């Protein structure tokens, strides 16, 4: 077991290094950071001085070595745009992104399971068909379009919800939260729906399919024969057995919720890490881009590692193959 975990951890580090190399290779195509730092009428000599001071005139290999050594020590440098340490900037933006991702996941789980169960049990009702239709929309409409539609409906036309930002925030230590104020909660609604809609659709369809599958199995038939109430059969037995794959998928999707928040954050001007990343790309702010990419890959790698380990704990069959590799 320990060997397995160690092997997985080494693989995870390999993935991180690969991400670092790919990211660094891509920065060279993002454009010239210097022309974003200085204004267009800056004399060429001054531009060269800036380039030199940033070490951008060094050979590629030296630049990569420097970047790698610093990243390994979690030193991400100072943002070109803001002249602030990248770690500070990311820490300031982290709460916004995490709160949004968690709310979106909760939204997706609650509504996805409810709609999925309903669509499976009352397959032929109008409401079930409506759920199916909604799930189609959720899968086929691009995120930014959903966001803009919501803004025009609920912010511009009805005036119920704010169209941008996080609302008023409460500061608890270094963490800022919008969960404790009315305006903060209102500001969370539309971005959470926009971000969570795709996952909700996914979960709904998964629950519906699993539920239909489970309802056909023998133990449900026996349960009915025993004369158990429909409620106990549906929710006590069927749903419980449906949830294992659902939780797995939701857990794995959490990483992509954080990564995909880039679009949602841009639409709602949500002051999170995704928005900062987009702006960093536009301005060729390499320190922020590098740190963000490494962080997201760290999140993915960690989640996968945890899931792998959990699997072996949950499923004894896997454990057997793990300890005696073929």
């Amino acid at each position, binding site marked *: 077991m320990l060997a397995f975990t160690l092997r997985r951890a080494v693989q995870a580090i390999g993935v991180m290094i690969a991400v670092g190399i790919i990211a660094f290779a891509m920065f060279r*195509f*993002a*454009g*010239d950071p*210097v*022309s*974003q*730092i*200085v*204004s*267009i*009428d*800056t*004399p*060429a*000599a*001054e*531009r*060269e*001085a*800036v*380039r030199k*001071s*940033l*070490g951008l005139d060094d050979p590629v290999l030296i630049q990569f070595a420097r970047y790698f050594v610093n990243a390994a020590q979690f030193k991400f*440098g*100072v943002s*070109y*745009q*803001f*002249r*602030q*340490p990248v770690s*500070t*900037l990311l820490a*300031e933006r982290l709460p916004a992104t995490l709160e949004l991702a968690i709310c979106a996941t909760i939204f997706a789980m609650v509504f996805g399971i409810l709609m999925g169960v309903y669509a499976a049990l009352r397959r032929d009702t109008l409401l079930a068909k409506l759920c199916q239709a909604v799930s189609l929309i959720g899968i086929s409409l691009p995120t930014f379009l959903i966001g*803009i539609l919501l*803004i*025009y409906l609920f*912010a*511009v036309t009805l*005036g119920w919800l*704010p*169209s*941008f*930002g996080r609302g008023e925030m409460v500061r608890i230590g270094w963490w800022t939260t919008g969960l404790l104020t009315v305006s903060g909660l209102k500001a969370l609604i539309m971005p959470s729906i926009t971000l969570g809609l795709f996952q909700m659709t996914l979960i709904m369809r998964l629950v519906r399919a699993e539920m239909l599958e489970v309802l056909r199995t023998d133990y449900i038939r026996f349960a009915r024969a025993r004369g158990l109430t429909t409620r106990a059969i549906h929710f006590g037995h069927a749903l419980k057995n449906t949830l294992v794959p659902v939780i797995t998928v939701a857990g794995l999707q959490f990483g992509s919720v954080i990564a995909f928040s880039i679009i949602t954050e*841009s*639409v*709602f*001007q949500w*002051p999170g890490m995704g*928005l*900062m990343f*987009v*702006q960093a790309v*536009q*301005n*060729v702010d390499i320190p922020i881009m590098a740190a963000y990419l490494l962080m997201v890959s760290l999140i993915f790698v960690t989640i996968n590692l945890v899931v792998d380990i959990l699997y072996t704990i949950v499923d004894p069959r896997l454990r057997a193959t793990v300890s005696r590799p073929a």
Partner: protein
Amino acid sequence: MSVRHHLLAAISLAIVATTTPVSAQTLRYANQGDLKSLDPHTLNETTTHAHLGQVYEGLTARDKDLKIIPALAESWETPEPTRWRFHLRKNVKFQNGDPFTADDVVFSADRVRAKGSNLQTRIPADAKVVKVDDYTVDFILTSPNPILNSQWDTWYIMDKKWAEANNATQPTPASATTPSFASLNANGTGPFMIESHQPGVKTVFKVNPNWWQKPEHNLKEIVFTPIASDATRVAALLSGEVDIIEPVPIQDISRVDSSPNAQVLKGPEIRTIFLGMDQSRDELLYSNIKGKNPFKDVRVREAFYKAIDIELIKNRVMRGLSTPSALMVAPQLYPPSKDFTRPKFDPDGAKKLLTAAGYPDGFEVTMDCPNDRYVNDAAICQAVVGMLARIGVKVNLLAQPKAQYFAKILKPGGYQTSFYMLGWTPGTLDSHNVMYDIMGCRDDPKSARGETNLGGYCNKEFDDIADKVLQETDTAKRDQLIKAGFEIAMKDWAYIPLHQQALAWGVSKKLKVVQRPDNQVLPYWMVKSE
């Protein structure tokens, strides 16, 4: 004291609060761009200057018509052409209470020219700044310069004592490894103070009660949020969550105008959009013509110019929001520009010119164009491609984000372009800047002349005139010289000026604002009703 007593007091307070008219308002403002740093000497960019102009002030300012007016300097004179004397305003205090004196001016002059500053050209590097007494400063130049103070409205004066106490005597360079105090904190003499600043997220300004001027605004607070997404920014204005946005995308103008609570304030901007052609290389980098450069032939340049239907670009691409231009400088910056007219749109004549130049079937060339820098930039280039196709020139359009575009076409990228679109606002708000930076010969590698002359247009006669323009102090004579220069450039078909794009601000109907053609959104002239 009893509970009832408290309650009574509270009620009477509440009554007072509701009956007194609340005149001081909160302005909520959203811009496409961020306020990245509060350090007034790190970024030379319009939006940043406008923001920091709420907190900091220069020796001079520009009024609502862009005329230079006194600010921290009460008056100035030039006893000799190479010596400018500035008399400073007395009894001005920085926001932390420090008095404003000549030491702060000398300090700020050094700081703005220091390494890491992006505004080094505000004051000539060899100029000496001498404190005469506490309220008099001399600027001693090595050669006469009639436009010395033309950009001083955005050369902001910092408090020497404050900067020294906070280790902020140098502007923070982009390569800094430690956070800069001055980029997160500010201490100016201006009408507003920074209350909180989270870079890229939100900045709150509150009114400076001790400002030396009588305010024209009625604001107590400015809440600034950058909103990069066009649709969201417009939605925030339409829903009343913000009072003013800049810019309104052209396609949203009619929707904003038809809404009950906001409208679009349009006006001409002083940025000139133009096309340039590589006329220095012996063979174009991106063309099917080998061994020679078609743009070296003046007839080809003339043909390109005459093939552009500027009215069509104005009406279709810009939806009426542009002012076609015959010059490389906006009429606000050079009043005699009305004497110049664009040559007529003449595709047949253009075709004949191309034939005469030896290209009866046209040729192929690649055009470089930004797609996120100017209003509808890529769409303008698309239109140009279509127009040139009519005279047989096949243009391959390469429209890229500004980060890649500028890296390719500017000097550090080796001027890698054959045909391009660019926009230019002379930083000095003066024609000389255009004549020097954009139209001057770039053959002397040691000189900064022509550094943004991407096509390498060169005419020594023109350069001589540009040099005289810099030295001439008599306005009428100077205008004549500039005119002579522009006439030469027109005769050479050096550039194809297109237009000045229009400004479009979305403004709540509750708000009265002043729109200056340099696109600075300046809350200190805004009045908001309830």
